[in-house]
């Protein structure tokens, strides 16, 4: 019976005006709308206390929404408890049952799902195989390393072939090197099986690396939804710009609008970029450190205040008349000296105007 295979039964998840309050006045999630397409990996990203874990637990059925509707597939699950939802979850602490062997842990959910004994075993073994833990079935969780425990937790959730698979900060208990590998493994399994995955993290790099789509949350609400690239390149506001990667927020003036392009000026430096619906006047500009070109032909003047060698590149702190900024430069062999006045320009696709003032 080793021909059992794990397949995905992915379903979309929809939140309609969902709120969650704890007690009378703690609002953990405030009226959010969210669509997770089937077969996609969507990350909930945000600082701690922003409501991302509560959102995840509402999908799992561990918290009940105070208002609104939650749909998985076309079924309204708003009031269904966790047991009756076709969802499984990988916990931050893994929550492996310490009194059961690895195989018993992985079979646990199957025994409540109407499988025969033989099939339960075959599926559990297939699940362990999938995460690369063949032969570990009789071990106790306490006899595994952190990374192996994590994979058992994943296998345990996978074998149920859930409509939605949830991850609650799955990498936070692993060391840095393992993190990169495990997140690639999770992404590979998700894509191979075509699973719908909702993934909570507070690490923006992790989110950028694994996601089809990222939901940035702030203060119990959604700040922005988009693909990793669109969030990085076109953040809607200062919060998102700062949270996803680093960004320099510079003051500028919009001189003129031409169609959907705007011409801006900083000191005497002019640059043309998408207007994003703004009118002429003062505005704010977000520029990634790597998109600042030091020593450009055209640009504004700044002084090198600090220069740090970090191996693969140089990092500079630049002082201009309107404030300081952070820039990186690939040339490590002939760095700019501290105290030098340089001309700083933008690369072509670099800066974006922030719609919100």
């Amino acid at each position, binding site marked *: 019976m080793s021909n059992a295979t794990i397949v995905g039964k992915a379903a979309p998840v929809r939140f309609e005006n969902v709120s969650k309050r704890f007690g009378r006045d703690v609002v953990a999630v405030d009226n959010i709308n969210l669509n997770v397409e089937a077969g996609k990996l969507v990350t909930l990203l945000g600082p701690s*206390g922003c*409501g991302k874990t509560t959102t995840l637990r509402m999908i799992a059925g561990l918290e009940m929404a105070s208002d609104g509707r939650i749909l998985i597939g076309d079924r309204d699950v708003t009031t269904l408890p*966790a*047991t009756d939802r076709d969802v*499984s*979850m990988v916990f931050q602490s893994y929550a492996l049952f*310490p*009194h059961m062997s690895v195989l018993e842990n992985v079979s*646990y*959910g199957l025994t409540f799902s109407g499988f025969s004994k033989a099939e339960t075993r075959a599926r559990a073994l297939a699940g362990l195989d999938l995460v690369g833990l063949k032969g570990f079935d009789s071990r106790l969780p306490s006899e595994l390393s952190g990374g192996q425990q994590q994979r058992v937790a994943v296998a345990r959730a996978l074998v149920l072939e859930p409509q939605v698979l949830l991850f609650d900060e799955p990498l936070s208990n692993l060391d840095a090197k393992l993190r990169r590998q495990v997140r690639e493994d999770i992404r590979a399994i998700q894509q191979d099986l075509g699973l719908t995955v909702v993934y909570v993290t507070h690490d923006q790099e992790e989110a950028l690396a694994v996601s089809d789509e990222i939901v940035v949350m702030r203060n119990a609400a959604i700040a922005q939804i988009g693909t990793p690239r669109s969030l990085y390149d076109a953040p809607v506001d200062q919060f998102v710009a700062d949270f996803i990667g680093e960004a320099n927020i510079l003051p500028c003036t919009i001189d003129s609008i031409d169609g959907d392009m705007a011409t801006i000026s900083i000191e005497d430096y002019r640059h043309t970029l998408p207007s994003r619906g703004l009118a002429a006047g003062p505005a704010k500009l977000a520029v990634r450190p790597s998109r600042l070109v030091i020593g450009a032909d055209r640009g504004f003047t700044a002084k090198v205040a600090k220069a740090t060698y970090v191996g693969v590149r140089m990092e500079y702190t630049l002082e201009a008349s309107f404030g300081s900024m952070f820039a990186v430069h690939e040339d490590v062999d002939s760095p700019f000296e501290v105290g030098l006045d340089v001309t700083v320009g933008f690369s072509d696709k670099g800066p974006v105007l922030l719609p919100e003032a």
Partner: protein
Amino acid sequence: MRNTASETSASPALIFWIIAGWVGYLALPWYGIEDGFFTFEWLIDGYPLDGDYAPAAFLIGQGDKLWLAPLVLPMLLPLLALRLKKSDPNYARLLILSGALGFAWLIAQGFGIGIRGFNFEWLKALFGDLGDRQFGMGYGALLVASAFLFLFTQGIAARGAINGDVFVVSAIGGVIVIVTVFVFFPIAKMLLAAFITEEGGYSASVFAAKFFDDRLWGLGCLWGGRCGAAWNSLFLAILVGIITTVLGLVFALVVTRSGFRYKRALRALTVLPIITPPFVIGLALILLFGLSGTVTQFFADLFGMQPTRWLYGMPGVLIAQTLAFTPIAFLVLIGVVEGVSPSMEEAAQTLRANRWQTFRTVSLPLMRPGLANAFLLGFIESMADFGNPLVLGGNFDVLSTEIFFAIVGAQYDQGRAAVLAMVLLFFTLSAFYAQRMWLGKKSYTTVSGKGDAGVHPLMPKGLAVPVFIGAGVWGLFTVVVYGMILYGSVVELWGVNNTLTLKHYVTAFSVRIEDSGIRWTGAAWDSFWTTIYIAAAAAPLTAIVGLVTAYLLTRQTFAGKNAFEFGTMLSFAIPGTVIGVSYILAFNVPPIEITGTGIILIVSFIFRNMPVGVRAGIASMSQLDKSLDESSLTLGANSWQTFRKIILPLLRPAILAALVYSFVRAMTAISAVIFLVSAEYDMATSYIIGRVENNDYGLAIAYSTTLIFVMLGAVGLLQLLVGRTRIGRRTQFTAGEKA
């Protein structure tokens, strides 16, 4: 360099103990003073030449007790070490040699020569009759013995044991010696007593005759007769263990897994066993179900039933012990039930297990060690309980009361008491051992790092209903029983004359104010003040011994640490009656002769309650990060300074808890106490038992009620103090990460 100083000059600890040894030898009375440890009449009564008060040196000078003379040699040796450097191997050798020689000689002469000269025939044969004798050790001997012990440990430390840390080695040595003297030695002595014939020889057949007694192992109850005390105790203890565990779990589930509103009130239940003298429950049951009890009378009037004595025997003891020990099981299980990681249960739910399946397959198995723990605690407590069987037992003999009657009864049979105590000890130690084996085998600790947020699910419905009914009924019963205690203390004569009166309180606690001051005219004052005095003296000592031991166990690693831990926790499994019997047998003859004094009471409390101090210390010390000690050590403090300046201040709550808890336990203890009290040192509990035996229930209950309130006051004070010290600390996770 801070090391250079201590390299060249002798350490202060060494000088201190050398001087202490000489003071003990030259200046302090060598033997115990008859009038008591803390009387100082000897200073003006013939000291230093009178034989009863003379220091060892004066005795030898007068040609007496010449066997003390050889002690001079090991006392001179460390003086040579003063000139040596610490790193010199001879420094360590000298100290070890001196300490070992001196200590060994002290022990040898102590046991070899007693009140009647030589204690052993072969010594008499070898040296002839001694024609002299010696009594129990006193200040001088105590100080000299301590000096030898700590010279020895300093020598061991100088050889590099435990990084050459004098404080740690000395603490380990000290704890080992006092535990050996006050736990293992009496037990060993008691085991020997089981083999002593009436002529004073040793014989296995004596033991066999007493051991295979029908009164101990008889199985008559299977066909209508009476069973032996051993079977009775075992059967009762198993029943009590099971029932208290189930009830404890029921209460724990109500508190942690239900929407019950008055959880705080339920938690107050856990205070009850701490502040209630064990037999008080038995008294209250008599007021309810005894021949003239309220409930009995009520049913007799209603149905015309003849009141029976059903309460006296197994049923009564079972009910009383269940009432008394359920809160203990609750206390254990509440921690365990709360300790099951919520994400485990949430994980089970997301894996499609319903509430009942989650409870059965995940929650309950994870609580298993706690359940075993609660069962064994109930088992041991029931085995060791003395008060309730004494009050309610009737013809139902159990080991603890049989031991008592073997010692104080008309039969006065030390051997039989020792055999019974051995059987009792065997049962409790087996339980203790089983508990450790069982818990040691499987790792139930939640395998996870951080991030254990989440909430416990509610109980499944099918479970919640019986749980609520059980908790409700039993809770109500407990309230009624405690109400009875209060009410019974203000009733003239229970069941006969139910008029309210304060006369029992007046009899016990009346006070007359005269010109010369307050006169404590009440009958109970004597034992009351003795109890307070003894409990107050024992509490700080218990806390010190407990915390030092906890420090060694959590913070230091040394060879034999597991055995050390087992030894110190062992006294927890030794029933009070066994302690009582063994103390009488061990300490009524030299070299340690303290029977009938207050000291023996204090000592028995220290070692009975030491595990409490150890546990409190371990619990709070393991929460202190070890890097705190390490940073202190790297900043130049030694481990004693670290202990005093860093650990102790952070342990304030634990210290307070250990203090109050040992104080309160000393006030409620009965099982060991009843053997050790004397006319001069009568304790409250044994006084009350005496009243009960005279059928003077009113006074007994009034006194018990007073004790309960005194102890409630002590516990309340503790809460207040501990609460206050916590305010100074920052609470780390105020809201918990709910996002």
